[in-house]
């Protein structure tokens, strides 16, 4: 049985003398680097920053909603709060979250390459992200914008005198940063695989990133041109979306959601890749139905392009097209369910251990299932008319984006932290954080389903007093959730210096990235590996361990 899986003793592990972290010091060696691992770290730092900025806005929103009366902020400020929360969280956190940090770091190693295909483009992508961040922060400093993250016309083009164009420019630039990441991933997956690394030996993480990259490359340019049109309309009064001049605001909705619906799959697919890796590693089994899970990622990407109009059921699209889009929306549930069922089947009879990434992965499976199923509610026409623009929608997409994606992001960061830094995070503290996050999340967003069903609309800063109990629950949950997010921030930083030395393969996992030292050398592989074994080859690992026991006995 041939394999290259190495299981070094963790007790006497030491930090390697040479790694990507100490290959060159000083700010310049980081800011001008072409190394995908360093760029991943740059991204990790910047998106963490924006996550906490966006989180602060969420905190203020929940604080305002503690009481039925508008007593913390004025209605204008409240509009700005939820707008900036949405813009920052969607475009500056969720879209780049897993792909640009974890994906950037491990994807080239997983396929057995020394770097992404275009290292300079990768660095450019980070700089574009920073420029986008500067635009958004600039808009924030000069007074913010309040069109909602959806840039709805004609509100955004005619009725607001806030910094819509600055924010639109920021999102435009962030879009190109994400296009370049996607382009790099696709080319790397096609052209940079090590000898023997066939498509069906790729880890599912690579498959899901490939699918998400397709969406980034095909969807994002449409958002870019749409935002250009919005900006032109604001600046020069041109009437493409203006009904008084013969334009059509619905065209804006079509163009916007043509990107922004696939964008939710851009956000969730990389997270699903993380979950595949984590579930397989900690149940010591090959992912059940590897091929089905791989193709379900691609299926989600393909279906994802044909469901955008379900955001527009109440906007005056024809009944016939609403019917078709409703049906297509139900179809997306199929590949998503394939994933959930296959992960559950992977757990079945596995040797499950409950390390922190696994706890987050369990959180993902539960919360994503609820989020996904409520998506089917909303995809059904009759229900959607009742529930749209209520807190039910807010709860639904937070279950998918925060309960799903953020859990997956934290699972990924914990899972690959030993590889990135060479040190372990404190295990018991991080388990506590995972459980805190889960409890806080449920407490925050579950009451919002009920609120929405009872009819509380989203985007208002005051509400009838009978909704207060549920809102207080939600705000209390947000506090717990905030603590759950602060904890990793603190102990991860602590572990950079004081964490236990991880060694190259602390999880005894089979992926290529675990066969090289932690932190990896700049070149990743001193010699490009030749792959002659399947992904997740844990059966081999089990046999070997058994064999060792018998010979020792």
């Amino acid at each position, binding site marked *: 049985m041939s394999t290259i899986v190495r299981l070094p003793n963790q007790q006497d592990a030491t930090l390697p003398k040479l790694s990507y972290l100490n290959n060159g010091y000083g700010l310049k060696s980081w800011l001008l680097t072409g190394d995908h691992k360093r760029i991943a770290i740059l991204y990790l730092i910047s998106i963490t920053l924006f996550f906490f900025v966006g989180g602060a806005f969420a905190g203020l929103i929940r604080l305002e909603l503690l009481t039925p009366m508008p007593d913390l902020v004025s209605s204008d400020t409240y509009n700005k709060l939820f707008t900036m929360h949405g813009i920052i969280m969607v475009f500056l956190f969720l879209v780049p979250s897993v792909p640009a940090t974890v994906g950037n770091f491990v994807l080239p190693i997983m396929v057995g*390459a*020394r*770097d*992404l*295909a*275009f*290292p300079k*483009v990768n660095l450019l992508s980070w700089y574009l992200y920073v420029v986008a961040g500067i635009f958004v922060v600039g808009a924030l400093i000069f007074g913010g914008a309040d069109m909602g993250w959806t840039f709805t016309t004609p509100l955004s083009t005619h009725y607001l005198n806030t910094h819509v164009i600055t924010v639109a420019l920021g999102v435009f630039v962030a879009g190109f940063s994400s*296009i370049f990441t996607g*382009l*790099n991933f*696709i*080319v*790397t997956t*096609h*052209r*940079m695989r090590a000898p023997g690394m066939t498509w069906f030996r790729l880890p599912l993480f690579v498959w899901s990133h490939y699918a998400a990259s397709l969406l980034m*490359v*095909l*969807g*994002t*340019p*449409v958002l*870019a*041109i*749409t935002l*250009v*049109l919005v900006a*032109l309309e604001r600046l*020069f*009064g*041109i*009437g*493409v979306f203006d009904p008084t*001049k*013969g*334009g*059509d605001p619905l*065209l804006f909705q*079509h*163009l916007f959601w043509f990107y922004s619906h696939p964008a939710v799959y851009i956000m969730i697919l990389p997270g699903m890749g993380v979950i595949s890796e984590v579930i397989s590693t900690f149940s010591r089994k090959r992912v059940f139905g590897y091929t089905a899970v791989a193709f379900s990622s691609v299926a989600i990407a393909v279906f994802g392009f044909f469901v955008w109009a379900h955001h527009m059921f109440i906007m005056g699209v024809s009944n016939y097209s609403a019917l078709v889009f409703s049906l297509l929306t139900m179809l997306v549930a199929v590949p998503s369910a394939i994933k959930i069922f296959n992960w559950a089947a992977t757990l079945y009879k596995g040797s499950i251990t409950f390390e922190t990434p696994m706890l987050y992965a369990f959180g993902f499976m539960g919360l994503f299932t609820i989020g996904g199923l409520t998506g089917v509610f909303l995809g059904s026409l009759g229900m959607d008319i009742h529930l749209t623009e209520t807190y039910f929608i807010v709860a639904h997409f937070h279950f998918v984006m925060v309960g799903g994606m953020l859990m997956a992001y934290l699972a990924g960061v914990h899972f690959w932290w030993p590889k990135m830094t060479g040190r372990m995070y404190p295990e018991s503290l991080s388990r506590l954080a995972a459980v805190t996050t889960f409890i806080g999340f449920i407490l925050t967003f579950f009451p919002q389903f009920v609120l929405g069903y009872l009819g509380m609309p989203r985007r208002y800063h005051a509400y009838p007093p009978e909704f207060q109990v549920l809102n207080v629950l939600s705000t209390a949950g947000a506090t717990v959730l905030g603590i759950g997010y602060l904890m990793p921030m603190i102990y991860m930083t602590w572990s950079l210096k004081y964490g236990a030395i991880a060694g190259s393969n602390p999880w005894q996992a089979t992926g290529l990235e675990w066969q090289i030292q932690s932190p990896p050398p700049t*070149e990743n592989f001193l010699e*490009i590996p030749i792959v002659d074994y399947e992904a997740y080859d844990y059966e081999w690992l089990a046999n070997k361990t058994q064999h060792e026991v018998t010979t020792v006995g």
Partner: protein
Amino acid sequence: MDSQTIAVRQQEEIAHHEHDHPAYLRHHFETVEQQKEAASFGMWLFLLTEIMFFGGLFMAYLLYRNWYHDAFVSASNTIGIGLGTTNTAVLIVSSFTMAMGVYCAEKRNRRGLLVSLALTLVLGLVFLGIKSVEYHEKYVEHHIPGAGFSIEDFVHPHDKRDIPLSPDVAQHAQIFFFLYFAMTGMHALHMIIGVSILLVLIYRARQGAYTTGHTSTIDNFGLYWHFVDIVWIFLFPLLYLISRHPLH
């Protein structure tokens, strides 16, 4: 074999190893073919994103053309066909000179490459020049949307007697001209970017950068240039030719 011989052998091997890897092979690629394939694949993908980028504008054009057919046809009839046709010819010829550039780079013909690139540059500038003359015409005719737009010139497209369009219909010609400026402007922007890159390429080609076997950059720029041409090949009929009044 004594240790000295081994050391010499090793040095020879290292030298041989370096000889195998030309200077332009980036460290993270295994072979030159891999690097070349990656570069061209990346370029094709980038062009795909460009198609989607222009796709939004084409979508808007199709929608409004269906809605405001008369206004669109009438507005399209006011655009002079001579300059547009000349520009189409200029671009097609520039595509040919660009293709010649790629050929010369492959044949390691530095002089030929320089001539081709320079011709492409000149033709690109000619296109932009003619385009700006056309824009100026629109300015003179008050056909710039949003800035003193005049609806006097728009006549009923299916009537030989030049009956003016009713004002509410004629207003929709503004949408046509907005799309005209957005689409040709976005195209011109791509031309300007192309011309700027050409300047850099000519400068580097003078130093002999692309005639030593490493032609990826020229190949990929060629793809970009042809793509921008093809966009125009779609824009020209949509904006100038479709339903052009046969009797005018």
